[in-house]
């Protein structure tokens, strides 16, 4: 029963990683860049929700929408100001810029909200704890919401990518930017939109993360960001189902590793598994092998 409880916690943590990983993988797939500032957008989203609840007196649903809306604007702004001018630059220049952007966001957050940790209000998700098997397995409301949110996001995003015009345009840009332009697709607008979606999801992830682990500070997003990036690579960067599977596996491995092997080595186990997977499948679990037909 303890195993089951650990498994559920792993699924919940993995769901958060998966939602963050979606942002990494979509941006990588479409803009062909690693947006290392993505983890920090999560932190900004959590701070916005914190302010909305604590200072602006908004109900939870409005706090969620405010965080999503402002993060969307933030994502579009970051892309437009920092990454778009580098569209023709080497990928290394873009990578360094992304790392710089990450530190900029952390330091701005410290300037605005201070370095002291804030405790995230528990009012965000108020659901009763679910008791199963005569109280032997307890699942908190936050855990349930997190797992459900992940499932809903996955279904909506998959439908969006496969059915809508914008979703199809995203797939075209991901595959061949030049050919996409020949079809009449505005590549800049598509990339901007991708950042918007990724950043709105980051806000959701930030709120879920801080509801489960209610300590909020300017560096809150960085470790989950790196883990989610790992999850995206693990699942096959560029692949949406890959990000989902990678995120969930990573969360489960982390929690089970901490529970049964060593608490201290939890993170090391996660990264060791990543290295082993990449040795055997360099493109990740669901990554596309590079092939071309002549």
């Amino acid at each position, binding site marked *: 029963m303890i195993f089951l409880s650990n498994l559920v916690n792993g699924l919940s943590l993995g769901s958060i990683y998966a939602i963050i990983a979606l942002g990494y993988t979509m941006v990588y797939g479409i803009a062909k860049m690693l947006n290392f500032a993505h983890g920090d957008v999560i932190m900004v989203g959590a701070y916005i929700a914190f302010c909305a609840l604590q200072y602006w007196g908004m109900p939870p649903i409005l706090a969620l929408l405010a965080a999503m809306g402002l993060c969307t604007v933030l994502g579009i702004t970051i892309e437009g100001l920092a990454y778009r001018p580098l569209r023709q630059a080497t990928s290394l220049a873009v990578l360094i810029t992304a790392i710089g952007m990450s530190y900029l966001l952390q330091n701005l957050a410290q300037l605005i909200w201070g370095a002291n940790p804030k405790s995230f209000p528990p009012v965000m998700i108020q659901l009763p704890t679910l008791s199963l098997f005569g109280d032997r397995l307890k699942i908190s409301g936050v855990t349930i919401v997190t797992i459900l949110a992940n499932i809903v996001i996955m279904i909506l995003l998959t439908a969006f990518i496969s059915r809508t*015009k914008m979703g*199809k*345009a995203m*797939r*075209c840009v991901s*595959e*061949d930017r*030049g*050919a*996409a*332009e*020949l*079809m*009449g*697709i*505005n*590549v800049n607008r598509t990339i901007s939109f991708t950042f918007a979606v990724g950043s709105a999801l980051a806000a959701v992830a930030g709120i879920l993360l801080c509801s489960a682990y209610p300590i909020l500070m300017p560096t809150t997003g960085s470790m989950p960001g790196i883990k989610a990036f790992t999850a995206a690579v693990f699942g096959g960067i560029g692949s949406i189902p890959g990000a989902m599977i990678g995120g969930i596996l990573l969360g489960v491995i982390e929690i089970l590793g901490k529970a049964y092997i060593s608490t201290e080595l939890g993170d090391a186990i996660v990264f060791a598994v990543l290295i082993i997977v990449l040795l055997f499948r360099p493109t990740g679990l669901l990554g*596309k092998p590079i092939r071309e*037909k*002549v």
Partner: protein
Amino acid sequence: MSMLEINDIHVFYGAIHAIKGVSFEVKEHEIVTLIGANGAGKSTILNTIAGLLRPRSGQVLFEGKSLNGIPANKMVGLGMALCPEGRRIFQQMSVRENLEMGGYSRPAAEMAGSVEDAFKRFPRLKEREKQIAGTLSGGEQQMLAMARALMSKPKLMMLDEPSMGLAPILVEQIFDIIRELHQAGTTILLVEQNAQMALSVADRAYVLETGKISMSGEAKALLQDDNVRKAYLGS
């Protein structure tokens, strides 16, 4: 009236001067072909017209309007389509989706039935409708690339090496399709290494040599020209 007019364009790849002052025109309802060896700059010219590359100087006029500064994604809306070298179909998407993307620039209401029309012209694609495009044979991929470009109902269709890598029987088929398109009223700018086929289908031709036009004229006349025959037709 000339549909497309190229005035003294110079195109660079970094420091490499790839196109050194090329001028030519394509009149309405013509088939014009650019022939020349590998690396002469044929694809560079088409990519420049389509806006994927920018000329450092010179002008491209489409229906009398300068295309300078117009982004590549707006070109298709003006009525030109490029079927690019190497086909560049969307390998991970289905045949139907590829066709739908070809009509991306047109309003959804106008698109009704367009995919079915494409299937009428290319029945082989109908059989492959749901198949992922990357799994098609080379000839089918070329047909898909052409069908996709046609989805935008272009006035000017530019084709870059449509016969490349195809078996002779398929090359014949591709050229039959080009003739059909022309008869249906589409103006065509064709870039080919297969000079024999290109000259036999075209009205006029330009011969490109290392970034410059070395010869031009009626396609029939060039087909008989000794220099052209020696250099490009192997006889």
